[in-house]
């Protein structure tokens, strides 16, 4: 039986969902993080990180292919039995909710410091929670429509990023591989966190209308992210001195500060507001994945209620718990480590497991 028949999404929507879950907070600090480990060779690390992400994505598609109408929440009980499957599902739900929480809190902290440093935390949280709920209470189709329309609608942001190129210094990029390959590999770890988000494919697969395009979709989704990351990183590398780029916390935004037109200055404020429309996709997708998981776990149809409860908890939490910059950074690091497990390692393990499973119990589960 097709459980999600009414909700299917097109290939382009699938691509945008994958891409939208990836393009988030990571973009703002990425150039500095990369330069920290790999200097001006960070772009090579980024491409390696992308390759890893694509490989992991392909594994996810392979894993989902066998039972095209299952999300990961249906898949796990199928393979591991009800009790063990429920526990594993809980792990996934917690992972997605943690992903939601950390991206949400980190982004709000960022908007707070850039825009409204004196406004209390819970007001900021409230400001973002209302649209988030409005979006997340819908089904996949609406989410993916939002992902698509914001992508096309805010493409101009990347045109604005071209402006600082007039002060580009191409010499900065030379010499390539100045200190050998080792620092390049060290930085790959950082890029992993930036590409996280493709694991939403674990949920999305049954919703995709033409499943034969899943491989194409997930690769293109990753590719879009790579192109945007690479462009932004190169612009930052060309603009800032290699000796100084690491002293900026958010070089991606700093680079926009020099834009001035005759009629307008401080373009970065407008870009940042535009970026808010894009970045909301990341945590909304994670929240959806988490809330959807809870509703599956409890056997309910509607995930709306669980999303609302989660948001209410976050709102209450935000009045008491205000993580510092350092706290946020370490939490993002933890999420990065979890990401290695859930998005990169787990699909591979599961795929191997299913192969073994299939050998032992041939034809039993069809």
């Amino acid at each position, binding site marked *: 039986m097709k459980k999600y028949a009414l909700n299917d999404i097109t290939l382009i929507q699938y691509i945008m969902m994958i891409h939208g879950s990836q393009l988030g907070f990571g973009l703002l600090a990425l150039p500095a993080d990369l330069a920290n480990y790999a200097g001006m060779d960070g772009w090579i690390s980024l491409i390696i990180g992308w390759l890893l992400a694509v490989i992991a994505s392909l594994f996810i598609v392979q894993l989902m292919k066998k039972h095209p109408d299952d999300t990961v929440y249906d898949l796990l009980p199928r393979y591991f039995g009800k009790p063990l499957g429920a526990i594993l599902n809980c792990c996934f739900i917690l992972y997605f909710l943690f992903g939601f929480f950390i991206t949400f809190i980190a982004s709000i902290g960022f908007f707070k*410091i*850039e*825009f*409204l*440093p*004196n*406004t*209390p935390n819970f*007001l900021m949280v*409230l400001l973002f929670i*209302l649209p988030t709920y409005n979006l997340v209470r819908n089904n996949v189709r609406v989410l993916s429509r939002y992902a698509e329309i914001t992508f096309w609608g805010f493409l101009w942001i990347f045109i604005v990023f071209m402006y600082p190129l007039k*002060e580009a*210094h191409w*010499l*900065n990029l*030379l*010499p390539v591989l*100045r200190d050998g390959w080792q620092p390049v590999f060290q930085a790959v770890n950082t890029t992993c966190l930036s590409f996280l988000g493709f694991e939403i494919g674990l949920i999305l697969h049954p919703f995709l209308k033409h499943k034969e395009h899943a491989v194409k979709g997930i690769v293109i989704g990753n590719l879009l992210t790579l192109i945007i990351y690479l462009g932004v990183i190169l612009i930052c590398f060309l603009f*800032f*001195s*290699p*000796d*100084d780029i690491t*002293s900026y916390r958010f070089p991606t*935004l*700093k680079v926009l*500060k*020099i834009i*001035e037109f005759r009629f307008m*200055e*401080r373009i970065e404020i407008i870009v940042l507001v535009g970026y808010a429309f894009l970045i909301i996709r990341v945590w909304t997708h994670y929240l959806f994945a988490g809330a959807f998981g809870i509703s599956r776990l409890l056997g309910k149809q509607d995930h709306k209620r669980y999303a609302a409860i989660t948001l209410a908890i976050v709102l209450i939490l935000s009045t008491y718990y205000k993580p510092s910059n350092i706290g946020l950074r370490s939490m993002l690091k933890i999420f990065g480590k979890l990401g290695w497990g859930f998005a990169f390692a787990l699909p591979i393990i599961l795929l191997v497991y299913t192969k073994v499973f299939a050998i032992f119990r041939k034809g039993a589960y069809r």
Partner: protein
Amino acid sequence: MTRFYRIALAVLALLLLPGCYDQMNLEDASISLMIGLDMDADNNLVISSQSPVFYKEAREKTESITVKSNSIRASRNKFDSILTGITTGGKLQTVLIGKRLLEQQNWFSLLDLYYRVPKLTETPRIVVVDGEVKDIFEFKPADKPRLSLHIRKLIDTAHMTNNTVVTHLQEFRRQMKDKGMTASLTYLKKEQNDVVVTGTALLNKRGKLMEHFSIMESTMFLVMQRQNPRGASLILNLDEPQEDQAVPDDQRGIRNEISFDIVNFKKKVKTAYSNGKFRFDVGLKMSVIITSIQSDNKEFAKQSQIQFQEKIQANLERQFDSIVERCQKKAIDPFGFGRYARAYQYKAWKPVQDEWGQTFANADVRMHIKVNIKNYGVTDLYSPLDGQ
């Protein structure tokens, strides 16, 4: 019922609107457009600020204020206790730095505020003042717009005609922090009735003023610096000691002078390293349009294109050599040769990157200039048949 909830929610949201704690009403703000940093004779930091006044009753349209203070942030408190509004720096246009301040160690850290606080802008022009900053703030020109806007415009237009560099805060930070170059800033001077751009101030890595380029040298510096010096116009004095001069040299009013615009420009730097010494071969290829030839000597004006090209080349080469040499003597590298060294001779660069100035002083820089006269304009000074 749902409608009731919706309206209630909307009203609640409205009630939260005053919760924008960061609002600032324009009439409460004193918008600082120009700020000046200087040292007085007793080595106190003196900070000046200028902001426009919007009140109808006020006769003066700008207010200027100068206080002694230890930092920019501390000066703001003093400004606030004197000025009508709350001082905001988000619209700052120009930062003037006094010459005496440049003598201080690490004065650059004074500007930290501007990089750290996201509310402030990064595009104010940063300018070195030859003399006291206070004089400029006290200056009230009758025939100019508000001084703070006038100075900003002055610098920008002077840059458009290649008379000086224009360095905003972000660019200045890059120049200070990049190990392969030193900073160059606009150089201003307050004269009797005017504020005058006098060229380019060159700082060393510690921010000390080491040397300055005149306007003509600034043009050459910009030509060398930039990839595309569109429309840079150079004027060369091609006087040569002549044997049979009719008039003694010091009485001649009309000089042999040729001026031209650069229309096409190519720069190529070859970097080599041998025997502990860097060598830079700078090839500058330019196509020019002659805009004027003046001379008291008919023969001079009637030279062939090749003769002119050679003379211009030799003259330019001498001048470029001299500005590079002067910088080398002072161990500064405003040209950014260090960045070429880093890009192409990384192994040799790495051990010397922290004292690049000294290394550059010993480097061998050779200019190779090729001038191609594309166009003589539409009229010659003398008809080619004249004097045949």
